[in-house]
């Protein structure tokens, strides 16, 4: 589904991503775990086309999207739930969801997906005329997920969905990620909360200061002593 090959990203003189390669297979949940500053968000932004890499390739279903502008990538089936959710605070919930479907023209399909989002997140429907800025952190996370789903993506990128949420809400969000995945959407998840991420991931990579240092199934990495000592507090 998604293939990243020898990606290098620089901010001025600083090399944020130093030659990483990874693959997300059709239908799976793949996770990149790593500490603050490891380059997780940079990777996500580069895949979505917000940052252009110095070298390397990004392939979506074997199509090279490295040089495709960000606004076209969405209609190719890749949507992202960004770090800190970044909902449009001045717009209502419904308007946020409509913006998620910005690239689509199939009115009936959009209505159908809006229905699905509301069924999945009933809280959003109750408050659809409210400004998104008035929502709590957890509700904003749900809105950001709903908004990304409105693009009807083949692959959903999720950047730190657990950030700033209570443990109970984190559980709920991860349950929903699994559910979305079971209904057929491939997921690339980036997390600092390694324990939760590894528990739901089919495959996982460890990212450290711009390099991939380990890879394996979620289970394997959860048992790996190096991962345990560095990321799982054990």
């Amino acid at each position, binding site marked *: 589904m998604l293939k990243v090959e020898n990606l290098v990203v620089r901010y001025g003189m600083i090399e944020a991503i130093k030659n990483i390669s990874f693959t997300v297979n059709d239908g799976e949940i793949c996770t990149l775990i790593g500490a603050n500053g490891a380059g997780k968000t940079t990777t996500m*932004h580069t895949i*979505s*086309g*917000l940052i252009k890499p110095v070298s390397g390739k990004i392939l979506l279903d074997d199509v090279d999207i490295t040089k495709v*502008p*960000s*606004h*076209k*990538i*969405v*209609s190719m089936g890749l*949507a*992202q739930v*960004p770090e*800190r959710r*970044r*909902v*449009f*605070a*001045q*717009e209502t919930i419904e*308007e946020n969801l*409509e*913006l*998620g479907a*910005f*690239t689509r023209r199939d009115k009936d399909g959009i209505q159908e997906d809006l229905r699905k989002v509301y069924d999945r997140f009933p809280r959003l429907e109750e408050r659809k005329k409210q400004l998104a*800025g008035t*929502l*709590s*952190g957890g509700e*904003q996370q749900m809105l950001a997920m709903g*908004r*990304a789903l409105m*693009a009807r993506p083949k692959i959903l990128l999720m950047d730190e969905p657990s950030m*700033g949420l209570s443990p109970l809400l984190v559980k709920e969000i991860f349950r929903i990620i699994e559910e979305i995945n079971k209904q057929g959407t491939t997921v690339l998840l980036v997390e600092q909360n390694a324990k939760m991420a590894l528990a739901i991931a089919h495959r996982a990579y460890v990212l450290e200061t711009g390099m991939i240092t380990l890879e394996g199934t979620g289970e394997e990495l959860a048992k790996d002593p190096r991962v345990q000592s560095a990321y799982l507090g054990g």
Partner: protein
Amino acid sequence: MSGVVMFFMQIINGLNIGSIYALIALGYTMVYGIAKLINFAHGDIIMVGAYLSLVLLNTGMHWSIATLLSILGCALLGFTMEKVAYKPLRKASRISLLITAIGMSYLLQNSFQLIFSANPKPYPAFINLPSLKLGSITISSNYYTTFIVSVLLMILLTLFVKKTKMGKAMRSVAEDEGAARLMGINVDHTISLTFIIGTGLAAVAGILYSNCYTIISPTMGSLPGIKAFIAAVLGGIGSIPGAVLGGFILGMIETLVKAYISSQLADTIVFLILILMLVFKPAGILGKNVREKV
């Protein structure tokens, strides 16, 4: 003339100049909202619009076609200005953009001085509808036309921004450009469209202004431009209703000060308002203090 009639006339004057300020302020505020740029060349677009329409009217062209072509010409200029001067600097510091905008303003003024000379030229006013008589007050057609056209355009703009897909794209780019990109919104197109609309409105303002004052010069845009900028700040820069409100308030204050206090002090007071506003309420009357939950 009785005091009441005189006061009423001043109110009409204030609404007239206020609607011109509001039209110009809309361009300032929209461009700021989306590109985070104070386009100081925006005032000079009024002048370009006035000269374009003068040249076209002098060829004997019907006023409606001349007006339409002038608006299109200014929109094209706005589009080009953004692509050539501002887009390459989008990642540069704010100060570089600001200096470029001031440079753009001088470039326009000086090239028009070169082409048309610095001397003011008479403008063939074409708004010649019957005057409106309300009791002992006569309102000339320039005045009510300016007001009606401006208000109509403001309503259309508001509907465009609120209801259309492109309008929604504009709002979302203004709020969070990166998130807008993730929605699949073409930010470059959105910025271009903003410049086109803003400069188109400024062209209309220029033509209405010239119809009222019937004399145009290459520097005619700078003072109304600065005042419209103050209007935009007063209303809350970035806010569309703020620009309209600021424009009308400023026009009204300026007219009333001219009529009842001193015509020499009018500009002083207008600039004093800007200073006071920046000191005490920098976000403006309708400006949003953006606060985010994290």
